[in-house]
């Protein structure tokens, strides 16, 4: 009996009751399929690791460094200096937002690589493999757009910690060829099961964006290629969402449904699904409102954060329906007056009610103190129209550009332009796409990134068109070289 006990009691194998073991999990078709969903999970992410919606990652980095929004330090002690330092270009390479963005993109690339490998080995539907490859290319596009030359790999068995940077142009070429090979394999379905996913139209929109900025990336513009890609998107049958007054819509106009709980299919090319505390959340409305105004409007104290500088706001035409997204002066609710002038961004900081607020993403339910459920339009038709206008002007065909820009203006309640310049398009992009994360790229492409800014005294160096490689990445990989100027 003793020896029997000894034999049965010398077994030391692990018992697993409550977890999935990797090999078992990915061996099933459902598991391989899940690898693709996981990549989309990366786009939504959460705090410090996302494309947009929550804070401290790609969206914040790319918008605060531009001129369409800023979070000032308040003279009541609120708000750390990070965001204001991005706006004034006094930030340091150690800034957490920079490493967050870098880490988010590389972990997204890893999951995309993994999805490509797993879907391929599972002999999945070619459209799914293509979708994973397009996603991967998109993350590389965001990466080289922000950082220039970056480590590049498509096989997860690569020892990334040792590879040197690949030239921005080489990554550009990879993205273009990867898209050419895969975009046509993507589904043509709009909305439904493809809401929030790369279908064929989103794929071409992405390609158009890459070509549009080719001059910045490789020094040689590709306006014709950009226009051709735009035309492909347009063939998907998109239309502008209505701009009419509508009491049932947020802020009284159907236009703002574009930024509501669900992005409407007519205009939306690519959306990011967000639902507060379920799939990340959208903080852009509550972050801007002050506490009393927020409590009065949505039942939660606002964070008294993001404002738009008067320099930007004052360019809007008073008839522009898009101007309704801004809150300035005496407010109907919450006993609040937003003062359009800001005295100081960093020291001693702005007074509590300084600054014009933006509720383009007027908080959609479910909402709580940490955010709302507005989906985020990554790409939409109005953006495409302005790109088509721009390409035509760039190609010396300004008259062909007019109908495109005028469609956008008409919807906004503005009169038609009779002639169009690049400045018109740059401004119109600002009016239409403010708060949507495109501003930095546009400012660089149009050569306005270093323009004088309100309350910024020192000149913005051209080297700031690229972000610094994060210190943590330089520590991890001795082969990486810091971008010039940092």
């Amino acid at each position, binding site marked *: 009996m003793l020896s029997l006990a000894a034999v049965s009691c010398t077994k030391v194998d692990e*018992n697993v009751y409550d977890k999935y*073991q990797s090999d078992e999990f990915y061996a099933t078709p459902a598991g391989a399929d*899940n690898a693709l969903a996981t990549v989309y999970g990366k786009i939504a992410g*959460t705090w410090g690791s996302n494309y947009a919606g929550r804070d401290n990652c790609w969206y914040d980095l790319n918008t605060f460094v531009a001129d369409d929004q800023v979070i000032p330090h308040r003279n*009541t002690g609120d708000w750390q200096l990070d965001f204001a330092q991005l706006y004034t270009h006094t930030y340091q390479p150690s800034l957490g937002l920079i490493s967050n963005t870098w880490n988010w993109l590389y972990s997204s690339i890893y999951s995309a690589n993994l999805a490509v490998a797993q879907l391929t080995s599972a002999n999945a539907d070619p459209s799914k493999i293509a979708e994973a490859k397009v996603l991967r290319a998109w993350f590389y596009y965001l990466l080289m757009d922000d950082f220039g030359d970056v480590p590049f790999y498509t096989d*997860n068995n690569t020892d990334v910690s040792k590879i040197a940077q690949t030239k921005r142009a080489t990554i550009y070429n990879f993205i273009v060829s990867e898209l050419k090979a895969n975009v046509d394999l993507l589904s043509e379905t709009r909305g439904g099961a493809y809401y929030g996913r790369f279908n064929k139209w989103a794929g071409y929109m992405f390609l158009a964006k890459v070509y549009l900025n080719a001059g910045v990336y490789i020094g040689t513009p590709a306006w014709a290629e950009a226009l051709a890609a735009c035309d492909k998107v347009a063939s998907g049958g998109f239309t502008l969402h209505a701009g009419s007054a509508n009491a049932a819509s947020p802020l009284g106009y159907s236009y703002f449904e574009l930024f509501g709980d669900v992005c409407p299919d007519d205009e939306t090319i690519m959306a990011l699904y967000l*639902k507060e505390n*379920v799939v990340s959340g959208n903080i852009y409305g509550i972050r801007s409102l002050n506490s009393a105004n927020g409590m009065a409007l949505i039942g939660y104290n606002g964070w008294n954060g993001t404002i738009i500088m008067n320099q930007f706001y004052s360019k809007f035409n008073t008839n522009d329906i898009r101007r309704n997204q801004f809150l300035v002066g005496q407010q109907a609710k919450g006993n609040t007056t937003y003062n359009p002038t800001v005295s100081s961004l960093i020291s001693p900081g702005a007074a509590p009610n300084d600054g014009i607020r933006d509720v383009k993403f007027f908080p959609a339910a479910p909402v709580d103190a940490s955010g709302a459920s507005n989906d985020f339009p990554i790409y939409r038709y109005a953006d495409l129209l302005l790109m088509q206008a721009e390409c035509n002007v760039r190609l010396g065909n300004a008259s062909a550009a007019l109908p495109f820009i005028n469609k956008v203006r008409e919807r906004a309640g503005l009169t038609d332009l009779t002639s169009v310049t690049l400045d018109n398009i740059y401004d119109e992009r600002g009016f239409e796409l403010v708060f949507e994360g495109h501003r930095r790229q546009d400012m660089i492409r149009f050569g306005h990134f270093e323009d004088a800014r309100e309350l910024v005294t020192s000149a913005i160096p051209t080297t700031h068109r690229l972000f610094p490689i994060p210190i*943590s990445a330089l520590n991890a990989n001795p082969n990486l070289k810091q971008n010039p100027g940092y």
Partner: protein
Amino acid sequence: MNKIYLFKYGLAMLFFFCALSSFAQNVFTGRVLDETNQPLPGATVRVKETGQSTVTDNNGAFTIRNIAQASVTISVSFVGYDVTEKAITQGQSATVQLKPNSRSLTDVVVVGYGTARKSDLTGSVSNVGSKDLNPGPITNPLQQLEGKAAGVDITQSGSEPGTAPTVRIRGITSLQGGNDPLVVVDGVQGNMDLFNQVPPSEIASVDILKDASATAIYGSRGAPGVIIVTTKKSAAGTTTVEYTENSSIDVIAKKLQLLSADQWTQQANAQGVDVSANHGSNTDWYNLLTRNGYTQNYSLAFGGGANGFNYRASLTAISQTGTVINSKFSNYIGRITASQKALDNRLTLTMNLNSGVNDYTYSPTGVGNAAFTSNLISQAYVSRPTDPVFNTNGSYYVDPNVFQYVNPYAVAQTVSNDNHINNLFGSLRADLEIYKGLSAGWFGSWRKRDSNNGYYAPAASTLTSAVSYNGQAHINNDHVDERLMDINLTYKRDFGLNHFDATVVYEWQRQTYNGSYSAARGFINDIATYNALQLGTLANAQTGDVSSYKNDRSLVSFLGRINYSYHNRYLLTASFRRDGATVFGANNKWANFPSASLAWRIDQEDFMKSQHIFSSLKLRVGYGVTGNQQGIGPQNSIALVGLNPTSPTVYFGGSLIPNYSASQNANPNLKWETKKQTNAGIDFGFMDDRLTGTVDVFTANTDNLLYNYTVPVQGPFLVGNILANVGSLQNRGLELTLSYDVIRGKNTRLTLAGNGTLLKNKVLSLGGNIQGYDVPTDYVSLGSNAYLLVGKPVGTYRILQHQGKDANNAETYVDQNGDGTVDPSDRSPDRVEAGQSLPKYNYAFTPSFTYKNFDVSMVWRGSGGNKIYNGLRQQFSILQYLGKSNVLQSAIPLGIESTQYSSDLWLENGAYLRWQNLSLGYRFNLRNVKFVNALRLSLTGQNLALITKYKGLDPELVGSNLSGGDYGIYPRNRTFSVGLNVIFK
């Protein structure tokens, strides 16, 4: 030396009598019993008249033949007992009962899987008997050991009711593998929480196994040291009823000085803080949240026994109300232990049953917004003194203009955070003597621990999450089930001058963990708190509101030990253990842990007989290999997929689905940490042991260091970290214990005792190759600017140097390499080395004095050589945040508006000396009083003084915190207590 003398001459005498006195051969018989009426084998019985001697057998019986006299006087001696003389008569069986002598507890030492005489020890073991345990308001037995043993550092960070101190035996030997020693209570093995089940007044002795030759018998659980607790057994023959109580008042020893309302207003005006931030009240938040605490400790113990049977039972109640409002702890322990002999005393059965309930009400933690979350009391520093506590309508005040404003008083008054733990453990031991010297044993123990934690925060708490959802509640249920069984064989034999004993053991143990968590939000009122989660609003449910788990770990061990001694002078101990563990990786399921140690009792040598300097002298040397597997949890070695922890749900294909992702890398090579330790020691006594002491030096190298290495997510690595055995760590140390009886009179005794430890610790290597990938780990940040650096001590500070302020009063830093920028990165040349977070030395001084029935004892203890990063001082010295929070008074002369990086301005010397304990006692002799045998009254003061340069609340906050950062602690108490101990007749 007596024994040798007796052996030589006694035998000769015997023959002499046999030859010459064959006509008068009287036989004397008898039995020797111990204090519990149990037979005492191995006691020496010597006939005073003839010098003959014999040793009692396993039944405690002796027989002496061939004596001419009809009656003689025998002298009976046994280690740990007073020598007893008795006149006995031929033909009448005599019974001699021995009484334990005053030093008995220090003479017999419990080592792993057995006991040893202290004089026979070859390893480094500290023994603390019950009379040496710290007195006073004790809520955890570890507090009784503070300062009592060299190399055993017991620290307590703050005095939150129910929080246990941290113990580190001979320093940090693991980074992530855990440094908590194994705890063994009457054979039941467990973690530190086993101490909650030990009534402080029921401890007979504590043995602390320190070096590897002592702990190797515990194999893969032995590396951080072993603490063995032996509880009191009843003195049989008489019944015992003993009542002990201790009551204390606990006051806060130190407060931080923050701005008063007037000072705040003045400073806010000077700084241009918006007037809307000043609400014109005068509130002392810290005072509002604190009070005097009380600690009470009651214990009733009784027992007794007859021949072959004894028992002891006790009931203990400990209750503590904290100095922060709404925090308290109570602990109730009932235990009974019984022992029965059978089969003609060849079989001994011992049963132990222990049941207890711990009730905690914790002060909430994690309070505040992301910029400064902390324990509740530290939020009192945040609150502006000009903020009112209540609104005019009586509700708790909040300032809506401050992001996620918290009213700490509202939190303290309204949040429930209760933890109830039921503990039950029992054990049965059977020891059977099979044949002369050979015995077999079986031991089984089963421990169950059920923990239930309930949390409820109503909307009135002002906590953002509770306000958002109109109340939130959650419940954790956790069950731990620990079973252990061993089968052992021991053999003892003496031949000639050789003594030999051996033990072999097979041991099996399994721990099973399972539990669940559920949360709910949105309650229509606050009546049911966390007791009815279903009353919440289902629509408010979030991912992660429901979860459960189950896992287990098993350890199978074969172990053995041989003790050999020759002539009582040369002692050898060798042990070996082989462990197989489920938590180890597939390639490394089994581990071997050998050890050997030697001792030379120089004082037993003939050449020492003529000298009078040394009264005792022993040299010890040992080497052993031990392991540590605390850091490996169940299933840590296999690749796992789980819900993505940060985004558990993904929108895909038009619906919300679970978002799975790799959660853990596979590591089939995962194994125990290996600690190889060499120890050399000397035990000495001068002047008839008036001056005694021990010196030990040791070197311990931990190889296969467990660490959660950061790896690039690539190749075989599906997630960015992997638990692997790569680095190595070295600890070297010197321990000294001294005790000197300055006065050793009949009525008066003054003893000066103390101990000290020097510790040197170094990271030998960190990086290495993990599954084919080089992981060049170095400059690993532990937080608070403390690092793991190869070649340096664990927790070496590398920090920017404070320079001054710029025109905007922003802190500036020294640009060490003069490149024009200050680089804060981990490897930056602008950082300078600035000491370490772990103390280099600690010491204790424990004098005691007795005069007749009066006694006084003290404990002074301290440590030093370390720095502390005072993160709290940094947080509350930055004037930039004045508009929404309070600051320290010391912040005003500093005048720093903002800091970009942390600097050595906040790095402080962590050395301290604490007057830990002063105790005065008086014993009333009541032998003539009916019913009462003895009564002792005592007065104890704890933490009476603290000598330190540290500016925070208390420098004692290391322990489990490798980085040495102070971000606010529960206040440290100063206590004054009265104790009573009554022994009834």
